[in-house]
């Protein structure tokens, strides 16, 4: 009895996702290669190709744990969360949380933060560059109006904080990195991930800068953000931090410009 096409596609989808479907095998022409073996080509391709896409997006996670371990990790995620749309560069938003809960990776407590960094870099890469806030844009504003100004992060930007030195872990995991080790006790890291003209990149922030940027991203005015930064980090120097962030093009241009 042939399956109607909607039923056939439902059965095929269930089969490639891992559930054996005898009704599907029954409508497939088998010969010296049985239907089950033929179906396996599709089932394996789905799992393998989606894992490969995750390996490309989470390239630092992949480099840290190696192909064998990553495959198990990725296939576990694929089995739980297939893509909901066809653009694979946009697949994997839930992967960092999956890594955090993945028992076999417990010995690598920084791995989920690295996954968040990989994802943030991927998001920034696929975001429009947009105009950035320049010193000249602010120079025309009355100085006493500056404190009440709200400043936004560029599209696709993200602040990634970790208890671990994930910037150094990231660097040590890149192709061609030196054999130098990274001390996991090296202190926390706060990274601002940004779209650049030809790629995505991150800036390492100190504690005060991180509090400043986080407050601005949360909608605080420059004044409010400066107060947050000063209470988070008493040595926070507003002039130096603001100048550095502006010169690194860390903010989106003001709406009215």
């Amino acid at each position, binding site marked *: 009895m*042939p399956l*109607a*096409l*909607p039923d*056939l*596609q*439902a059965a*095929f*989808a269930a089969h*490639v*996702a891992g559930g054996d479907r005898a009704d599907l095998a029954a*409508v*497939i*022409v088998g*010969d*010296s*290669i*049985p*239907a089950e*073996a*033929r*179906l*396996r*080509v*599709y089932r394996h*391709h*789905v799992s393998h*190709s*989606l894992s490969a*896409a995750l390996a490309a997006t989470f390239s630092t996670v992949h480099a840290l744990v190696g192909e064998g371990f990553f495959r198990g990790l990725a296939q576990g995620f694929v089995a739980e969360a*297939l*893509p*909901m*749309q*066809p*653009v*694979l*560069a*946009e697949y994997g938003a839930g992967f960092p949380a999956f890594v955090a809960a993945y028992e076999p990776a417990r010995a690598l407590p920084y791995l989920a933060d690295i996954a968040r960094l990989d994802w943030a870099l991927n998001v920034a*890469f*696929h*975001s*429009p*560059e947009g105009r950035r806030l320049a010193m000249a844009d602010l120079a025309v504003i009355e100085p006493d109006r500056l404190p009440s100004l709200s400043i936004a992060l560029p599209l696709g930007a993200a602040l990634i904080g970790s208890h671990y030195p994930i910037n150094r872990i990231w660097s040590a995991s890149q192709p061609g990195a030196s054999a130098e080790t990274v001390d996991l006790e090296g202190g926390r890291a706060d990274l601002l991930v940004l779209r650049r*003209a*030809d*790629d995505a990149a991150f800036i390492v922030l100190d504690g005060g800068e991180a509090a400043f940027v986080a407050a601005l991203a949360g909608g605080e005015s420059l004044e409010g953000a400066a107060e947050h930064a000063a209470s988070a980090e008493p040595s926070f120097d507003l002039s130096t931090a603001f100048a550095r962030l502006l010169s690194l093009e860390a903010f989106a241009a003001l709406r009215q410009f």
Partner: protein
Amino acid sequence: MAQVAGIGLRSPHLAEIARDLPATGFLEIHAENYLGASPARQAIERLREAYAFSVHAVGLSLGSTGGLDEDHLARVTTLVKRLDPAYVSDHLSWSVHGGRYYNDLLPLPYTEEALDVVVRNVGRLQEALGRQVSIENPSCYLGFAHSTLTEPEFLAEVVRRSGCGLLLDLNNIVVTAHNLRLDPLAWLSGLPAEAITEYHLAGHAVNDCDGQPMLIDDHGSRVGAEAWALFDAAVRRYGVRPTLIEWDTDIPALPVLLEEAGKADRAIGSPSPHAARAA
């Protein structure tokens, strides 16, 4: 003779192509890789001045009974309108079910029921784009017992009912014919010549499947002898068309890809006497 063979543009070659602008017939991109506002898409848009483009979609799922994903269709439409490519194509297959994307070119039974679905979806796609699209024959690893049409008959009927073009992948014919015990030359005969807009060429792997050889369309090597012979036969029978070299697994250095395209150009210049007989 003019270069009619082009190459599939893959990201590891993008910077080199943007810098050196090597001569080739055209560049083909996968639509789904350039839907975001990445610097890679900006690079593609700059290359548009130097090259003819083909936009090859891999995720429209033209065989889905649920119809096309309108959000995805809108994004592909935006890209096509920005690039204004010479050709637009996707596959005779499905990859979406129940809102989930399986990232594979899944096979269809060749029935009247499936024909209605594909014709409707291709019609929607052509309506959204305001232009003709071409449909590519997929590599098949299985066939359905209740198919009432052959794959080429099904494709010809989609062409007749929707007005779409055909993208003929000679390697996919080799792979499908071997795996489903068909005669590749018989497969090739009887297509509507005027509908064929493009040829694809690629390499495949031969894998062991429960002790039997199964051809796998891995796009991971040079074009094989059988695909070249079938290409000769197609050119003899249907004429010269823009021809693409695809390579997706173990991507080689750019010159290797260009060399394969050069081979296709030479084959077009002088189809072998063997192919003439075969066709």
